[in-house]
């Protein structure tokens, strides 16, 4: 531990005076420079986000009309048309992903918090954490190899499966953390009343952790709503409306990706308009999560 500003034994009082003021000044300047520099660094990310949203808004807001939301894409190169199939497709994918992802995530969280014996649970926890770090395109590749290639068809179902894997770690770890926060006394009270273990978890523990679990699910949904890479290999995208989960399915991110590479001005602007929807969705859901968690933490510290 070196503390350089201490090691100055005063020789004469005047020398001491001048040296400390010069020294102090230098330290103050360093301090000020550090504050300004780190402040600028913090601004970079924030300003970039504001700029980007502003730019997307400027490019896309004129095209964000009601027909854009309700019509199918126009023929190539023609003006007008919308992204209704993509929006429907995204909703279908989110429902499919939730169908698999929420039970898998929530029950894994319950296992980790309630049943897991130390060694086995830590293996499962390691696996779940591993899922967090895997690039999402790997999940797409996995489902592509497992489902798409054997069935010779891209499909909405495959897309939903790929997205559901992405949901698992977020939902599972949030559920686990929230269940651990449920006070012991609640469980004990339930057991003292003669409730069985499953009854205790189902009717006492889970309801009191509901807010937290919902937060985890919303975080996961916000994450998958904007995913493109895994869908490219599974749902693939389509210009047509939703007919069956066994056929290629449109999705908003995929549509934006396609339009980005389009030579037509209209489609490029529509890509920006679509991005606006996506951004609004993500920002709103993260604000909602903040709101819910805010309430949650208040209640937590309140007891």
């Amino acid at each position, binding site marked *: *531990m070196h*503390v350089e500003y201490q090691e100055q034994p005063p020789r004469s009082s005047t020398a001491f005076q001048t040296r400390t003021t010069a020294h102090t000044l230098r*330290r103050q300047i*360093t301090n000020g420079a*550090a*504050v300004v520099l*780190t*402040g600028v*660094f*913090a601004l*970079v*990310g*924030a300003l970039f*986000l*504001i700029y*980007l949203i502003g*730019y*997307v808004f400027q490019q896309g807001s004129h095209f964000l009309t009601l027909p854009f939301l309700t019509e199918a894409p126009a023929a190539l190169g023609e003006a007008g048309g919308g992204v209704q199939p993509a929006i429907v497709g995204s909703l279908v994918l989110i429902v499919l992903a939730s169908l698999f992802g929420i039970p*898998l995530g929530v*029950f*894994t969280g319950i*296992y980790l918090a309630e049943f897991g014996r130390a060694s086995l649970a830590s*293996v*499962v926890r390691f696996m*779940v954490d*591993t*899922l967090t*770090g*895997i*690039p999402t*395109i*790997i999940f797409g*590749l996995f489902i*592509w*190899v497992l489902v798409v290639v054997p069935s010779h068809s891209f499909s909405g179902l495959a897309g939903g499966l790929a997205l559901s*894997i992405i949901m698992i*770690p977020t939902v*599972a770890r*949030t559920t686990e953390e929230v269940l651990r926060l449920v006070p012991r006394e609640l469980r004990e009270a339930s*057991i003292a009343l003669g409730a*069985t*273990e*499953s009854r205790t978890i*189902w009717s006492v523990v889970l309801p009191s952790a509901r807010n937290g679990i919902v937060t985890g699910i919303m975080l996961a949904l916000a*994450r998958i709503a*904007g995913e493109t*890479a895994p869908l490219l*290999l599974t749902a693939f995208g389509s210009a047509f409306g939703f007919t069956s989960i066994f056929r290629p399915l449109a999705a908003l*991110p995929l549509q*934006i*990706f396609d339009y*980005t*590479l389009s030579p037509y001005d209209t489609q*490029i602007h529509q*890509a*920006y308009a679509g*991005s606006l929807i996506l*951004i609004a969705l*993500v920002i709103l859901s*993260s604000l909602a999560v903040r709101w819910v968690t805010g309430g949650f933490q208040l209640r937590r510290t309140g007891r």
Partner: protein
Amino acid sequence: MAGLPSSTSLSAAGIRERVRARIAAQVVQMRVRAKHPSDFLFRGLTTIFVIAVVGIVLGIAWILVSDSWSTITTFGLSFLTNSAFDPVHNVYGVGAAIFGTMLTSAFALLIAAPLGIGAAIFLTDFCPLYIRGPLAFLIDALAALPSVVLGLWGFLAFAPWLQHSGEPWLQLHLGFLPFFQGEPHGLGILAASLILSMMVLPIITAVTREVLAVVPIGQREALLALGATRWEVIRHAVLPFSRVGIVGGVMLGLGRALGETIAVTLVIGNQATKPSLSLFDTGYTLASVIANQFTEATPGLFYSAVVEAGLLLLLITLITNILARLLVARLGRSRAGGLA
């Protein structure tokens, strides 16, 4: 004080207290273990779901290995060095892609690490309280931005700007460096790296903030009491304490950068040039190889090569992430994952 170790003295009262708690816990456990049929059902259901999750993780590894086995055995290590993706001659390799993955990620971290750590220091120690909330929210929201939106902006706005203004300027002023030589294309390694840096910035900031927050308040107060400035507190008390965790946070960012697909695929140009250090060159990453090639992948070696690119990406990101988590967890907090 948060920093003081809780006094677990071995006083008789303390021991008695603990024994009592232990017995109480066992009583509860015993009562719980007297099971009702519904308990078995519930446990069984939970176990099935957990087995499914474990099965998915193991299944990913198994499938990727088994379906790339034919290229692994055919090309062996030359798959890692060869840069061709040539269906005509049936020769495949991801040398350029591995190089591109490493180069873009390294350059992205070079920018994002100082920015992210600086931002975290500002937010935890320097920032007035009333700006902290909004500023932190904006940086966090950057992480939630869909990567296709960044790709769209990068492809249509940023890359053309780089080509006409950014890269010529760099060439004029820093052209003596090997990084800024060659024809400005706009699309290429530089564009990909810069966009990646904005994508990993919020991760590094968030993890660093968590790590800085666990530095015991006593550490800071001790130095402040000695008359240190706030920067000196950071420099001599906070950073030494949290160095390992910050490295972990940077590596978590690296994990994200290595596997990012869509934004990179859109701006990197997807053409393998002769590997050079020039950031103006177009390139490939492992993830963009998969995104570009899977539609054309015919059964056989081509298909297998695409899967092996995925396998390599999985291995690289797994190693990075596990190391990162170990580093962050050493600080006693293991919730670095799950940032959305």
